[in-house]
């Protein structure tokens, strides 16, 4: 019986938590989120290379919250999400503890301080392929970039899988859902898609933990995560603040320095 299973058993039996949010066997070889509420089912939990999705999304779901205190099997990005959610007053220590998967072994992190420590030690750079793609795009001419995104976003059907799977998209009413005024066209024509992804990227700038779950969720394979990654990176580059670093709010887009340096304001 592996470390995670026994840990989950222990927590559930002791009643420390009411549910363990983790990964289980899915269709074929895939992994899917599961919610273990009884010690005897802890065996269904799986830890392997297939466990990449950021489950933090479930920490703010009413249905899951209703189950009681949560333990969540956490990859590094999940930990960063927990800190950002804490900073945004969406998660309290009594709500959830983390069962962090950090280089192979399982560590129980019950406080935000502990999570901050753990996060500080784990590199949070984005994947090489993604970085390459961003560099490639930034090297393009603006016209080429427009063409690239026109083609990619042309496939978007506004299913909002990206939004729904994003741990930071917990708003009960998204800008997309505002209709007085109608901020963003509901229809998934080119403008509606462009504006939707633009708003999403801006709203994640300074908050994105760079898990890439949004891109992975897209059924038609649009690399939407590159947009939030880029927005987050421009924040980090210019202001030295980043999403998911600590449980105290340090949101780049609602703070400022009088000597913020820019070159374009005349």
């Amino acid at each position, binding site marked *: 019986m592996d470390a995670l299973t026994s840990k989950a058993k222990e927590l559930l039996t002791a009643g420390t938590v009411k549910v363990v949010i983790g990964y289980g066997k899915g269709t074929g070889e895939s992994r899917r989120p599961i919610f273990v509420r009884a010690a005897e089912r802890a065996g269904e939990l799986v830890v392997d290379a297939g466990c990449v999705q950021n489950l933090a999304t479930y920490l703010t779901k009413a249905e899951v919250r209703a189950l009681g205190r949560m333990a969540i099997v956490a990859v590094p990005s999940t930990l960063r999400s927990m800190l950002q959610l804490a900073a945004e*007053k*969406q998660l309290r220590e009594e709500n959830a503890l983390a069962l962090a998967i950090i280089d192979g072994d399982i560590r129980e992190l019950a406080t935000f301080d502990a999570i901050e420590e753990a996060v500080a030690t784990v590199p949070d750079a984005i994947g090489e392929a993604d970085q390459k793609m961003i560099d490639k795009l930034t090297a393009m001419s603006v016209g080429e970039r427009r063409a690239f995104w026109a083609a990619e976003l042309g496939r978007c059907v506004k299913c909002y899988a990206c939004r729904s799977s994003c741990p930071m998209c917990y*708003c009960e*009413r*998204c*800008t997309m859902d*505002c209709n007085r005024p109608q901020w963003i066209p509901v229809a998934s024509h080119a403008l509606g898609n462009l504006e939707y992804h633009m708003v999403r990227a801006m709203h994640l700038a300074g908050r994105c933990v760079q898990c890439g779950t949004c891109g992975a969720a897209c059924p038609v394979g649009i690399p939407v995560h590159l947009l939030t990654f880029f927005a987050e990176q421009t924040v980090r580059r210019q202001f030295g603040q980043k999403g998911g670093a600590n449980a105290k*709010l340090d949101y780049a887009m*609602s*703070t400022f320095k009088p000597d913020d340096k820019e070159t374009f304001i005349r």
Partner: protein
Amino acid sequence: MSRVGVFICHCGENIAGTVDVAAVAKAAMDMPGVVHAVDYKYMCSDPGQTMLKDAIRDRKLDGVVVAACSPRMHEPTFRRTAEEGGINPYQCEMANLREHCSWVHEKGEPTTAKAVDLVRIQVEKVKRNHPLKPIRVPITKKALVLGGGIAGIQAALDIANTGSPVLLVEKSPSIGGHMSQLSETFPTLDCSQCILTPRMVEAARHPKITLYTYSELEKLDGFIGNFKATIRRKARKIDEKLCNGCGVCQQKCPVKKIPDQFNEGLSNRAAIYVPFPQAVPNKPVIDLENCTYFKTGKCKACEKLCPTKAIRFDQEDQIEVHDVGAVVLATGFKTMPVSHFSEYGYGKYKDVIDGMKFERLASASGPTGGAIKRPSDGKTPETIVFIACAGSRDRLKGVPYCSKICCMYTAKHAMLYQHKVHGGKATIFYMDIRAAGKNYDEFVRRAVEEDGVKYVRGRVSRVYEDNGQLVVRGVDTLLGAEQVEIRADMVVLATAVQAQDGAEELAQTLHVSYDPYKFFAEAHPKLRPVETNTAGIFLAGTCQAPRDIPETVAQASGAAVKVAGLFSQPELTREPIIAVVDRQPPPVFSHCVGCFLCKSACPYQAIEEESIKNRNGDVLKVVAKVNPGLCQGCGTCVSTCRTKAIDLQGFSNEQVFAELMSI
């Protein structure tokens, strides 16, 4: 469907001369929701406003667009009119056809087309306006006056005499300001201190005035009627209650060779000193840079000899926070640093001095007891040259503006010289003589006609020394631009008036705007000369622009009346242009998701947390709430809010979108 009325103002020819107002009215009539559109010569005139009121009544209008001048000019006027007409004042918007259209574009079709667009934009906006109620906030009926010169003293006295308490803050050890340094004053030649000192004493004794000298404003929070002023009371290192101002300490202080600022360095003072004999309060302060004890840890002579044991070496600065309802800025001016005038030999030649030095020389309380003696050797100068506009009206090296007082005080200086030095020869180099003011020109004439002061119209190119004597080389433009050289015993520069050091920083602390020369900006050059564009902060004296004593006093009284007017209201009604976090019926309660990212975006700490509870008192949701007293309506929170739960009244998302959609 709304019933909007559009009123296009000709503003005489100002708008109608460039924009086809009839065409605009016709186009407006075609806009959805518009039921009434007219053009008229002067909408702001009585008949114009009556026309507006009648239309609201007769055509049952629920919204009004006045297409005229800038809303910054007349929005309040027309909102009041709309209210008198029977609708909510905030159902009235203005389209800026003058400043933003007719005055800046050529006559023609595109300009009229723009005018139509500007009207359409406001029509679409006003259709989405909601009736708003002014916000009422209490007023702290206590004024803060910054600066203890004649302006500050006058303002403080006038406010105090209306019965409201005043906190008068002066950064130097005594009130009195520049005026206390002056000898006589034009155009009456009465002694400056003789008229000032009684005012200083009155201010100090006034039961409603609290005097904080040697103190500075650190920070100002809050808003009109409700400011919080943080003041640093610098340590004088003496106990003011015990000190009786006997002056023993000054006499006994071993350090004596410190240039005396009050006498412009023409005499010396001790390290513990009272700036001048008539100082108010008449209590010394220890100058930390020069005090032996603070430099070496030894001496303490003053402490030993003080009869009342008032010396306190361990005294610390004190920070106090005061609630005040209004602020009067009277921080005064400085004269242009003379280092500026190398070609006039300033600093090089002891006997080239500036006007303030001359004032001290001429002053009965000055280092020479009023006798005109030149600094180098104390000799009485037989010829003296005054150079007007030293820095003023000099785009290249100085300041482009006129310092306003120099013409008069230079005439006064020359006159005083002639009175004090019989047979002396005074020459004044000038550009123009600006003697506008009651009895001013007469005064200048007296200088010329009765006292024989010689006026040379021309600039001085150079002042140099020729075997121990100053030579002033200039040009006399009235004698066919011929060069003149005058050998003088003394030269006096009428240096330009400049904004006080630190004026810019202060303006930023107070959020008042300032002009390119760092003089504080009035809210309107003609109609609101003593207000700043920050409500509750007023201006008096030379911190706003160069001016003489009578004007300064008049403006100070003006500012005082503004403060008194503010304090005369039971409470303050503020524009309801503030942010609001939406509230919804259950189960939503509010679209706010409670992330509170808006909190750090708010410059006024106006965003609070509100717990929404059910009957049993358990918290269902914690959401943001805007404190209407603190919110100033900048709307920064609004554009930070992802759920669009915050909106700004008067500039709501719906209104702004409507404007955009009509472009």
